[in-house]
């Protein structure tokens, strides 16, 4: 027996494991299936708390499932439904369920009013804890805590901030097409807590949420004069935004909520104006014979993007607010309208009309990389979720001699995971809030 030889082999094996002669393989595709997740009901020994815990888990499941990025595993597939909160879960039990992520937690009643929620998020494959947090809130605020937890989970897994703790204002529609009743309404992002904000005795259109506060700007035909109104959701009070000769419409808040850009139509000419909401000073941004409308701020508030027919057809332009320099960015066929800058800053969503069809699309801020996200007989008015990866808009389809009633739809900017938002009646003009403070 040659000891030397064995030793050489031994040494070789130690070093060979660090040997650099390795294969390099590029993987440029994967599956786009939703990630299987297991969310256990939040537990407590008392019956009341246990059922509240169940409701909270339910809201979280619903939130995550609706993104299309996750799929909830059914309870029946679980080997156990109880995981000791203070112990590492037995991951082999969860791997067999195909869950990639496990969420479990407990709910504790602190006093008559307050509850505390503790939860953990585990990466089942890596056997790694991703999040462990405790949250406290009032009992009647349980839906919001469910949304906050959903945001934490979503954000930890996808790397984007969440958008579940948000609301959507929109226009609720009913009645005949020729005498359509249009009311301002608001709901949670998941359709819960629906409320009407106006009574429908006058037309309400194109609401916009301030990204930084609880203000909503919208076009109201109160007194048969179309003007922009500001509604404070906290006090329920509203007021007209300045008194201008002509019609003000198409409002949009700046990202910090301190300014508002809008259109003012007067004597057949529509131009853009910016108003400082603190000083109420108005400054004119464009002066061109033609229609300049649908302005929207960039996330840093330094530029705006808007549509104009100055070239003879609706196209998209950007303007630097300081230099007032205007640049056309859309050059494609068809009419381009209602551009909306993504809160993430990278993309601009827009409406396009081409060959009798409407499209929702996105393009980079220089106009390149145009991509269609959704197409319908009529679809318009995109609004971004505050994380900049989900879009809402409303759409209508063609029937034989008419069109279907408008409904709000939500879609991932990849064009996947289309969902309809369930509303009490027909719905149009959605506008997403920022993340609630």
């Amino acid at each position, binding site marked *: 027996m040659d*000891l030397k030889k064995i030793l050489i082999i031994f040494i070789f094996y130690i070093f060979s494991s660090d040997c650099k002669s390795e294969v390099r393989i590029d993987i440029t595709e994967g*599956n786009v299936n939703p990630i299987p997740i297991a969310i256990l009901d939040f537990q407590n020994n008392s019956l009341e708390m246990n059922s509240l815990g169940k409701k909270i888990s339910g809201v979280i499941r619903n939130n995550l499932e609706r993104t299309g990025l996750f799929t909830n595993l059914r309870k029946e597939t679980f080997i156990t439904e109880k995981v000791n909160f203070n112990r590492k879960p037995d991951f082999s039990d969860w791997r067999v369920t195909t869950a990639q992520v496990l969420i479990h937690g407990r709910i504790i009643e602190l006093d008559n009013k307050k509850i505390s929620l503790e939860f953990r998020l585990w990466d089942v494959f890596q056997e790694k804890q991703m999040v462990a947090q405790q949250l406290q*809130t009032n009992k009647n*605020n349980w839906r919001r805590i469910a949304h906050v937890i959903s945001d934490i989970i979503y954000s930890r897994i996808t790397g984007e901030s969440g958008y579940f703790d948000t609301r959507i204002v929109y226009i609720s529609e009913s009645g005949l097409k020729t005498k359509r009743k249009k009311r301002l309404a608001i709901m949670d992002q998941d359709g819960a807590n629906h409320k*009407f904000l106006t009574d429908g005795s006058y037309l309400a259109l194109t609401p916009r949420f301030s990204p930084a506060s609880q203000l909503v700007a919208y076009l109201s035909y109160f007194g048969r004069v179309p003007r922009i*109104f500001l509604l404070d959701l*906290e006090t329920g009070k509203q007021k007209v935004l300045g008194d201008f000769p002509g019609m003000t419409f198409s409002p949009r808040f700046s990202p910090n909520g301190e300014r508002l850009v809008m259109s003012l139509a007067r004597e057949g000419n529509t131009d853009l104006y910016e108003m400082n909401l603190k000083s109420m000073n108005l400054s004119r941004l464009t002066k061109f014979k033609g229609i300049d409308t649908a302005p929207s701020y960039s996330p840093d508030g330094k530029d705006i993007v808007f549509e104009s027919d100055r070239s003879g057809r609706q196209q998209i332009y950007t303007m630097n607010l300081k230099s007032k320099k205007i640049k056309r960015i859309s050059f494609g066929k068809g009419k381009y309208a209602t551009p909306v800058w993504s809160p993430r800053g990278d993309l601009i969503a827009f409406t396009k009309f081409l060959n009798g069809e409407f499209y929702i699309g996105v393009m980079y801020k220089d106009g390149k990389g145009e991509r269609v996200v959704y197409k319908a007989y009529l679809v318009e008015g995109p609004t971004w979720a505050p994380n900049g990866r989900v879009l809402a808009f409303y759409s209508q389809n063609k029937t034989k001699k008419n069109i279907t009633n408008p409904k709000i739809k939500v879609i991932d*900017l990849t064009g996947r995971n289309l969902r309809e938002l369930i509303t009490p009646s027909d719905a149009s003009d959605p506008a997403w809030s920022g993340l609630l403070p």
Partner: protein
Amino acid sequence: MIGSLFLSIIFHSFIILVFLFGSDFLGLKKKIKLTDIPIEVVEIAKKSEAVSKKIEKKKESIKKKNEYTPPKIIEKPKPPEFAKIEKKKPLEKQQKKIKKEDLKNEKKVDRLSSILNTIEKIKKNQDKEDIVKDKTVESKIPDFTGEKLTISEIDIIRRQFIPCWTVPAGIKDVSKISVSVKLKLDPDGNVIGSKLSRDYGSKSRSYKSVAESVLRAVKHPACKKIQVPKKKYEMWKNITLNFDLSDID
């Protein structure tokens, strides 16, 4: 003969030792840890109070400038009860430390077990054929000049990872991100180790979430054992997978 007996004793005791400690490292004993996992405490309180104050100020300034009487509102919107978010410090950061140690241990075990596998085989052969043992040992020496993997063999390996990887599509700057992970495989094609080529500590959130999706992919149960041309172990025992999203929108 005495020499080989001596060696055999060394090896065996070594194996026993590794099993004793290795099982601990691997958690084979299923010892349940009773350690408290730290929790980040977030009280939903103060933060929003501050915000609503700010909003109030804003409101006042707008009110002053405008005397228009607002139209009647049918249903006043109830503002959400502002959840109050107050962050307390994480109780402890032990968990992280433990994790790191675990990782290190795991690595050690991986290397040792692959060594052991081979040595065991060698040993068996020794016992059976005493005379030809030298030859046997020699034949077990990996073939350095072995054939390279063919393109189709690489493609077979590549395809196996596709279903395991859930693409984090749609995230910001997704087309600019690529994540490399180094895999270590045992002779049967089992993935016994994985490590990111670059740590994501200082990288963007987008990069981090792509990196995590990659780590989940290579630890996916369906990708635990990879179909490989067994003879060419030397060529695939270390594989670098480069997950590239530039073609994915």
